[in-house]
């Protein structure tokens, strides 16, 4: 599993295309179901999937463990969004917390984690080969 994080508009998708060489097999957090995430090669806008899942009261507990079982080679692109003022809206606060929690699980699960800034990816975690 590979996790690619970064602020909005930093070029995460381009980075995954060009540097991780993922040209096809993309799901999009804007419209995909969990079953799509289980069989895609990679997903972009993962944060929007989390938001939609929460809006329909879908339980995201154990998501990282489920993916390890069903799609261990997935690459996940997500915005980092924890660096703002506490939102006034309760749902926005819960969304921010929940995305952080899910991404923490994914990062723990991932073999590699990249952080993209100004289009440049820095590897911030690499699991030692077994």
């Amino acid at each position: 599993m590979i996790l690619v994080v970064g602020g909005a508009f930093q070029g995460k998708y381009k980075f995954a295309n060009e540097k991780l060489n993922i040209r096809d097999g993309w799901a999009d957090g804007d419209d995909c179901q969990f079953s799509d995430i289980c069989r895609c090669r990679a997903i972009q806008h993962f944060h929007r999937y989390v938001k939609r899942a929460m809006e329909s009261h879908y339980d995201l507990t154990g998501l990282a463990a489920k993916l390890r079982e069903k799609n261990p080679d997935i690459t996940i692109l997500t915005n980092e969004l924890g660096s703002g003022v506490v939102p006034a809206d309760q749902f926005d606060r819960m969304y921010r917390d929940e995305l952080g929690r899910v991404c923490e699980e994914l990062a723990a699960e991932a073999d590699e984690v990249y952080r993209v800034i100004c289009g440049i990816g820095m590897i911030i975690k690499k699991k030692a080969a077994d």
Partner: protein
Amino acid sequence: MIHLITGGVGSGKSGYAEQQIVELGDGERIYLATMAAKDDESRMRIEKHRERRRGLNFTTIEKPTRLGEVEVPAGSNVLLECVSNLLANEMFMPGQSGIHSVNAVIDGIEHLDRQCANLVIVTNEVFSDGVQYGNMTHIYMEFLGLINQHLGRMSDLVTEVVYGIPVPVKRPGHPEVSL
């Protein structure tokens, strides 16, 4: 040589950027200021930055838009501060570049780069608060992200400053994806 410096507000990126110019040595130092002195708050910010540069021998050029019109001395070391302000001016000041602001900013910076010896560029991280802004702010963020990506590609060095600590993002001789 181009050095792109990014970081949040109050990260210490301006001080770090000035230090980078000073370390380049005795070449003529140009400070290209993009903030328009339109009210008391901007005047105060400008004064704060001026105070810090005092004694560092910078010649200041104030140019809130259209960097394509700026002439700097050949071989000079230029500090451009900052891209986020420049973009806001191009986008929102009447009669400026509007929807064509991405190209206007990039072309202006390339125009500077052709004239000077070294260019240090300060930009801004505004991308990680997760807030859904209104249309124009969303477009502004997208434009700044596109510009930052382009500048990241054309720069020799990229640094993110965190509370005064420079975190190297891109360095010559190192692969872009590095641990």
